[in-house]
């Protein structure tokens, strides 16, 4: 189906179904119940899932396949956002030209930075990308204020030209008249689900990008990228120049980041320089590693995981904790709340850091590897496991020892 083998096709179908039914799946708790705060099915958060999913998928094409760890990917997200807002300012609020331009700008910027940074590898490459991203961040804050509007952030003002804006078109971001904010709430007994146009735009984009990444992973080009990660020297000896391939991967992932930035601006027409800061670059690294670098689904999982906890964990405050442990004796309740409190609410970064360390230490393959390990345990119980390589085509049998 669609040029995918059965396994990939079923994975793709699952992702499509999950993405399209997310408004149901993310709201498993009745709206009035005490567990409703765990519901993630509100438009803003769902949009972020999809957008950061795209960002992480793109990052994974570079890091997961070639092993080049870029610490400056947020720069592409930032320029994507700026490009999109400029399209809103100059043309009109239709998101299509905005998103297209942000992809192009993200790609061009990645071409420029990648062309220079990819002269070096390893940690030098990380530092170079970091330096470029920090430079863009500093410039966006200071000298480039006419373009970026500095600290205030770039936004659309009423006296902007908007040459293509017609009188009846909505004056918030829209796709041919359907505004991104339009939300249809459906109540179903005690449950309520909201279907947001913006989310579906992002979700469809994410599905398309996910499909593209599967095709890239399975293509000869993807094979070449893996070869770079595995053994670059050997690749050189076989007469292949790795540079064009890594540059292509870098530009592709830059375009993904640009698209994510454009979509961020399309959901909320505001672009600030802090999107380019290196902590933002660090975040996408966290997402990819947490989910599982080099796997297809991992980055999306990681992005969803981090964004979910960022929003849900940070909302838990002392009162909520007291409510949870109200059934315990008072002393024990207070004790537990005091222990747990630093890890939630404002302190959720601490949880994130600890979790991240645990994943890097014990599960280098991320959540995906964790899932596989659990799966293996269950399969072992059922039947004797067949020993087979994950990908027989690309894992040749070990050759017999020579001498």
């Amino acid at each position, binding site marked *: 189906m669609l040029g995918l083998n059965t396994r990939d096709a079923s994975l793709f179908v699952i992702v499509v179904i999950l993405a399209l039914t997310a408004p149901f799946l993310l709201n498993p708790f009745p709206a009035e119940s005490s567990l409703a705060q765990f519901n993630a099915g509100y438009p803003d958060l769902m949009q972020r899932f999809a957008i950061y999913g795209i960002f992480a998928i793109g990052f994974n094409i570079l890091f997961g396949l070639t*092993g080049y760890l870029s610490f400056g990917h947020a720069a592409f997200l930032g320029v994507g956002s700026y490009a999109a807002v400029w399209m809103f300012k100059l043309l009109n609020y239709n998101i299509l030209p905005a998103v297209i331009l942000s992809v192009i700008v993200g790609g061009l910027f990645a071409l420029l930075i990648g062309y220079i940074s990819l002269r070096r590898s390893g*940690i030098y490459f990380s530092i170079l990308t970091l*330096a470029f991203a920090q430079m863009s961040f*500093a410039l966006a804050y*200071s000298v*480039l204020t006419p373009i970026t509007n500095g600290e205030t952030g770039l936004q659309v003002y009423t006296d902007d030209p908007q040459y293509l804006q017609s009188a009846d078109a909505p004056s918030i971001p829209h796709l041919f008249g359907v505004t991104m904010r339009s939300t249809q709430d459906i109540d179903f007994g005690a449950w309520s689900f909201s279907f947001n146009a913006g989310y579906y735009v992002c979700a469809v984009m994410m599905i398309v990008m996910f499909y593209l990444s599967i095709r890239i992973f399975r293509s000869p080009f993807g094979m070449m990228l893996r070869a770079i990660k595995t053994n670059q020297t050997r690749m050189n000896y076989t007469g292949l120049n790795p540079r064009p391939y890594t540059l292509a991967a870098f530009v592709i992932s830059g375009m993904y980041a640009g698209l994510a930035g454009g979509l961020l601006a399309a959901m909320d027409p505001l672009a600030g320089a802090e999107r380019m800061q290196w902590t933002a670059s660090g975040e996408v690294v966290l997402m990819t590693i947490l989910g599982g670098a080099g796997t297809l689904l991992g980055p999306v999982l990681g992005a969803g995981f981090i964004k979910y906890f960022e929003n849900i964990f940070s909302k838990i405050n002392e009162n909520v904790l007291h409510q949870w442990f109200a059934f315990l004796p008072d002393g024990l309740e207070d004790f537990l709340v005091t222990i747990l409190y*630093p890890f939630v609410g404002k302190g959720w970064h601490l949880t994130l*850091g600890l979790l991240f360390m645990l994943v890097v*230490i014990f599960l280098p393959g991320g959540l995906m590897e964790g899932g596989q390990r659990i799966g293996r345990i269950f399969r072992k119980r059922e039947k004797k496991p067949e020993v087979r390589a994950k990908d027989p085509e690309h894992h040749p049998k070990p050759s017999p020892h020579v001498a």
Partner: protein
Amino acid sequence: MDAIIIQILNGLDKGSAYALIALGLTLIFGTLGVVNFAHGALFMIGAFCAVTLQRILTLSTVTIDETQKDFLGNPLKVETPYVVNWFGDSAGNSIIDWSVPLAIILAIPVMLFIGYAMERGLIKHFYKRPHADQILVTFGLAIVIQEIVKLFFGANPIPTPAPDMFAGSLDFGVMLGFDPNAIIYPYWRLIYFAFAAIIIGAVFAFLQFTTFGMVVRAGMADRETVGLLGIDIDKRFTVMFGIAAAVAGLAGGMYTPINPPNYHMGMDFLVLSFVVVVVGGMGSLPGAVLAGFLLGILESFASTTWATTTVPGINQIVIYLVAIIVLLTRPRGLMGRKGVMED
């Protein structure tokens, strides 16, 4: 002329901080081969050692003084720090006044211990893992340390003044024959520079003139052979990690009067220090120190009005720009050795 001197002087204190952090990073990298993204966090812990000591010294007993009234007419509460009670007025107050330099005494054992624990508890397990994994786990550790500090000390910068004695400025110009007030330089920055020079000198002397240092240098050159000679090189490298942590911590502690510490100061310095290490040449100790001072001075020159009007925004980007140019023209950095981190 005086303008040039003043910029060089201004660059020295920041340059000293860069040089000290970069020195520690290079020590860790040269001995253990680990890229330590948590080094900025160690710098920050050092700074908070000074804050902690200040807090401890100002722990007070509260007595109600019936003779004095506050503006509401209630008896005034007088806080007397314990040290004042114990050592008398003048000695006690001067101990509090000198809390930042005294923090050195606290910081050295604390940082040595933290460094030792970090290496034995975490970094040890990452020698065989790829550099990307080392970067990631230390990055995670940096986040954790940062958040813990934030939990205890809050998110706002905490002012920690230098001793009163060093509060003023030195009229440096007069000594060189310029007009009075042409070049004035705060005493504490001068002290920071001298302190940094002493620390750097001590580390180099330790490596150069002691048997321990000799073994460490041998281990840096060829770890395996040193191991074959029956020397437990891992143990010595662990000590070096502790020393590197102590250097970073001292750099941070003494920096507090110049820049009030907050929980993310480490990250801000770390990014720049990595750039410094790369410019100096990965694995080269003199390179790290040289590049630290060079970039500090360059940064201060770039923030003059002349520079910012000629090239707008140059003060923000000059370090990164230099790093990019150096990496592209001299890929091994200013004094880098062959074959370090080139795969």
